């Protein structure tokens, strides 16, 4: 079920006009290629431009130029901007909370929001904490995501990057804060509180004892294993992974079909299909494999393989429907298409009026002009 996930596209315009600074921050944390929050940020050491790892890797397959400034660019000139990734992750997880908090204050009361007010527990009935948690350390904006009846128009399902379960958007941060232990809200407040204390004290040690022993030891394990990736807290789950060998770029023209098939097989990839399919599969796999390595929350290779298969199914669907890019030889191979489950109705329904209205305006202009000419 990725339908809802795909239907929700966030962008900087979601920030109220009263917060132009937030729009700017949101814009600057996005990749100029996919318009989404950066993922596995890579910076060109040549010119300083930053993109998602997968986006720039794919772009460089097409043309070896920096998309922003047209300076020659090769993959070896890209470096990880890890601190930026961490910033993006904290921004991403706070974003929903903060936007919800802003949406729930009426626009007329924006001016009156003060730090004092927002650090107190909400007085609105549907936003009070159910379990009578009166801890004054517990910030009110966190409590807003704890509502058991989330607002229908702001709540969307997203796939958890850690456990791949589908979680309501308003609950995803809470779910992640609890290391994917809970997918139901009712029993989670205690854990949340724990997490909050932990982060405010900026220590990896959990001070609440009691019934959270498993949780704690998992956390400590994750920390130990991922010292260079502090934000692994976002995706820490135990996985049984296949570990696939690192692929390398190939000059396809010097490879026979059988050699290429053997390489694919050794990489753990399917080795069937036409020559074009084999090459496209390998190219895309190289991009995805290294982009995953660059990610702050790497996926399991199993998951990566599944996504490659899905990508390929979409590509074939496109090819058979005859809708391929006629302009570029490369484009034909690296086609990127809609998932079969995609449903754009919600989005269009939300925007249809705007377009109709604009069209009408144009027609009226046309009419006016016509009269004037007569």
């Amino acid at each position, binding site marked *: 079920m990725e339908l809802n996930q795909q239907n929700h596209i966030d962008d900087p315009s979601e920030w109220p006009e009263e917060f132009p600074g937030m729009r700017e921050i949101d814009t600057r944390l996005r990749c100029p290629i996919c318009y989404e929050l950066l993922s596995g940020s890579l910076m060109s050491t040549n010119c300083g431009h930053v993109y998602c790892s997968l986006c720039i890797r794919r772009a460089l397959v097409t043309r070896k130029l920096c998309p*922003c400034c047209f300076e020659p660019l090769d993959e070896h000139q890209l470096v990880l901007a890890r601190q930026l990734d961490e910033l993006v992750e904290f921004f991403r997880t706070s974003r929903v909370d903060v936007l919800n908090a802003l949406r729930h204050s009426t626009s007329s009361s924006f001016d009156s929001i003060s730090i004092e007010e927002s650090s107190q527990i909400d007085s609105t009935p549907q936003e009070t904490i159910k379990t009578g948690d009166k801890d004054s350390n517990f910030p009110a904006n966190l409590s807003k995501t704890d509502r058991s009846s989330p607002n229908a128009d702001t709540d969307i399902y997203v796939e958890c990057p850690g456990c791949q379960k589908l979680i309501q958007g308003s609950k995803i941060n809470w779910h992640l804060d609890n290391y994917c232990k809970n997918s139901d809200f009712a029993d989670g407040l205690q854990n949340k509180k724990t997490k909050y204390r932990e982060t405010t004290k900026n220590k990896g040690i959990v001070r609440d004892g009691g019934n959270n022993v498993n949780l704690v030891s998992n956390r400590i394990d994750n920390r130990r294993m991922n010292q260079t990736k502090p934000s692994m807290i976002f995706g820490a789950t135990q996985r049984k992974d296949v570990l696939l060998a690192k692929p390398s770029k190939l000059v396809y023209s010097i490879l026979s079909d059988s050699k290429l098939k053997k390489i694919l097989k050794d990489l753990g990839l399917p080795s069937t299909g036409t020559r074009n399919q084999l090459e496209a599969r390998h190219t895309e796999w190289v991009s995805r494999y290294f982009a995953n390595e660059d990610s702050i929350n790497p996926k399991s290779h199993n998951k990566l393989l599944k996504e490659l298969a899905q990508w390929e199914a979409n590509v074939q669907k496109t090819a058979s429907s005859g809708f391929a890019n006629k302009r570029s030889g490369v484009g034909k191979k690296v086609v990127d298409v809609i998932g079969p489950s995609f449903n754009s109705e919600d989005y269009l329904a939300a925007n249809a009026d705007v377009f109709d209205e604009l069209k009408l305006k144009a027609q009226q202009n046309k009419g006016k002009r016509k009269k004037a000419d007569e």
Partner: protein
Amino acid sequence: MYRNHGSTALRRLMTEYRELCLNPPEGIIAGPVSEDNFFEWEALIMGPPDTPFEGGVFPAIIKFPKDYPLNPPSMRFTCPMFHPNVYSNGEVCISILHPPGEDPNQYETSAERWSPVQSVEKILLSVLSMIAEPNDESGANVDASKIWRENRDEYNKIVKQNIKKTLGFTDA
């Protein structure tokens, strides 16, 4: 992450559409032709003031490749368009629609080219300024280039006649 890279093109097109709806540039309207296909857009461009195109509305179709934005869309006017940079079949020929090194005319190598960070909005703005100021170096329509250069009055007259045709007059 919260996204499926299989739908990069579609998600980007939706974001661009939303931004165009929220902040439409002056004189331009654009959006998908139908709900089923986000890869084909219709655009309406108002003729820029103080040009022979003033008062006209010029419909065009924009088609996106499935690997958008790695590769550029193509754009074709669906109305008569007498312009040095528009082929007689309506296809627009400007630098932003060509990636570096893939320009059929090989003109203005330093001009703005296609790259994944360009956008529909930037294309439409380029087309708008192309309408106002033809690029003499690119001869998509040789007749139009010639008349535009040598007989501006005649050029303006043809443009005006086309506008009337598009708006439904039969006297042209």
